[in-house]
């Protein structure tokens, strides 16, 4: 009954991917929702493992009613056969089949033009492929952390990591935490850890509160966000969390694991004020300096980027026919913006895959909130900033590339001594960025130390792939028309 409906593959089951999935499924498209987690939700709505039988997961969450609405809709569409939800699928590549077959005039492309390649389960060794007429990338983002002495000690983790372990595994790494860095994520992390019984010794934010006052107009346009901020302020008080603004962590101490951090005040130019250093005992440091979009799949598909984000038009279409993108991958802006973008992307994809011009009026409320939230986050972005002189905290023996253990001194030698002026040259000279994480963790730091802008990394695959899987990828395509006739392919 459903087989002739166009088929959309949505990659990522966070707010953007879920909103897109339910919007497209409700408008005549068969959707395969492909996600790496065991349960839908992404990072923002990360759910506790089902076996933990959490009776009150909402205690760890915000905007729970929105989640309930989304997950109920998803369940209904799955039940009705309109959506297939593939869990534990780690997508490493989306391939666009180059075909003689002409695309439709509206740009939806030929049928089955895309192959999504994934690895199955936590072990990520067995492959799986999904064919689709179009893809919608909702791959989210990950956290940026700038280095400082001691940041590789066990017990130091990303702010988002602390939250992910709390929401997903109901686990915390210790009894006393410091939450530090910059950005709106730090507030829910600090209050979440405190509610879960962790003593939060301090919330250390490098931003100057006066910067918010200067942006009051953008904030005033978002009364909901101001109320959210007020709620967090009340929670900080209730949990007796000390808020240190214009402060930064200058060093994490410990031998085999974290024992304390030194924090210090920052002056107006972003330098540490001498004599303000103080030591805070803690076994956990949750630290983050903002978010970066996951763009690997889009880049390999050839989608244009705007800075570090996937570039989209007002329908959330990328510049590659048949590829939509929504959420953090198109620019960091939080869950509410992701929901709006996902909804628009899903509606646009559904219309275009059915050969009709989408009716923009049908998503006008989402478009309006998209505009306002993008303005809001653009303003936030100018407010929240890491210490301007953070590179000064990176001593020569501070490990910068965690995977390959490349120090600040080695990177400075490559830059100052050998003339490297970009991340790629530093990598070739030092191995920084050449390890397991492929430079996702150290990229911003290496760029900062090299004195250049962070640019997209152009990774051909979004995650490590076993060679056997790579060798066999596309074997099942033999029955499809390909550029080369089968008899010239090697055995």
């Amino acid at each position, binding site marked *: 009954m459903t087989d002739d409906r166009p088929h959309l593959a949505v990659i990522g089951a966070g707010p953007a991917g879920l909103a897109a999935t339910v919007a497209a499924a409700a408008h005549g498209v068969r959707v395969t929702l492909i996600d*790496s987690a*065991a349960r839908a939700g992404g*990072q923002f709505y990360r759910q*506790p*493992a*089902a*076996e*933990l*039988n*959490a*009776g*009150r*997961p909402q*205690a*760890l969450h915000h905007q729970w009613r929105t989640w309930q609405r989304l997950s109920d809709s998803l369940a209904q569409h799955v039940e009705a056969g309109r959506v297939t939800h593939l869990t534990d699928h780690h997508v490493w590549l989306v391939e666009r089949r180059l075909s003689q077959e002409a695309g439709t005039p509206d740009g939806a492309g030929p049928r089955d033009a895309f192959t999504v390649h994934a690895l199955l389960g*936590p*072990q990520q060794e067995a492959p799986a492929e999904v064919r689709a007429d179009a893809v919608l990338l909702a791959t989210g983002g*990950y*956290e940026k952390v700038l280095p400082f002495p001691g940041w*590789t*000690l*066990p*017990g*130091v*983790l*990303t702010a*988002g*990591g*602390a*939250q*992910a*372990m*709390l929401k*997903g*595994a*109901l*686990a*915390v*790494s*210790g009894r006393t935490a410091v939450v530090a860095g910059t950005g709106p994520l730090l507030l829910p992390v600090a209050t979440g850890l405190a*509610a*879960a*019984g962790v003593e939060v010794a301090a919330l250390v934010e490098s931003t100057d509160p006066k910067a918010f006052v200067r942006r009051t107009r953008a904030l005033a346009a978002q009364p909901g966000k101001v109320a959210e901020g007020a709620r967090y302020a009340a929670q900080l008080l209730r949990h007796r969390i000390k808020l240190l603004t214009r402060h930064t962590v200058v060093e994490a101490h410990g031998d*085999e*694991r974290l024992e304390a951090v030194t924090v210090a005040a920052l002056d107006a130019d972003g330098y540490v004020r001498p004599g303000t250093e103080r030591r805070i005992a803690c*076994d956990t440091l949750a630290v983050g300096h903002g978010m970066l979009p996951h763009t690997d799949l889009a880049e390999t598909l050839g989608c244009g980027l705007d800075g570090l984000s996937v570039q989209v038009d007002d329908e959330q279409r990328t510049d590659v026919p048949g590829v939509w993108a929504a959420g953090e991958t198109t620019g960091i802006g939080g869950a509410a913006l992701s929901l709006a973008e996902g909804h628009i992307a899903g509606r646009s994809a559904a219309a275009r895959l059915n050969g009709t011009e989408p009716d923009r009026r049908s998503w006008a409320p989402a478009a309006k909130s998209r505009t306002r939230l993008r303005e809001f986050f653009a303003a936030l972005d100018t407010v929240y900033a890491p210490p301007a002189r953070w590179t000064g905290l990176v001593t020569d023996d501070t*490990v910068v590339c*965690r*995977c*390959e*253990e490349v120090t600040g001194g080695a990177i400075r030698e490559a830059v100052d001594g050998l003339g490297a002026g970009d991340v790629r040259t530093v990598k070739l000279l030092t191995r920084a960025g050449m*390890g*397991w*994480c492929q430079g*996702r*963790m150290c990229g911003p730091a290496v760029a900062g130390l090299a004195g250049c802008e962070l640019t997209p990394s152009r990774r051909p695959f979004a995650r490590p792939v076993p060679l056997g899987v790579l060798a066999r990828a596309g074997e099942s395509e033999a029955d499809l028309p390909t550029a080369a006739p089968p008899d010239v392919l090697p055995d």
Partner: protein
Amino acid sequence: MSSPLNLADAHPDPAFTVTLDDREIEALPGQTVAAALWTAGVTSWRTTRGEGRPRGVFCGIGVCYDCLVTVNDRPNQRACLVPLHPGDTIRTQEGTGHDD
């Protein structure tokens, strides 16, 4: 005493036993390797290839590959992603994990 399990009103099935090197630790159904090790008070389970420094969870979402560990004789598993099952053997990992 509040805890994440209390906060979320979690009622998992009874804990089971897994091994970490030569000791037994308890794990709850649904817990990842990292969560069970944290609950057992362990925050580091590998040493780096170069300097032999201890590492544990960093990003918590499978991006950084810092929490690599050997599970059931397979090295380089991400502790933050892999769920545990009764009788699983976890071994702390040294270097590449392929030396022993």
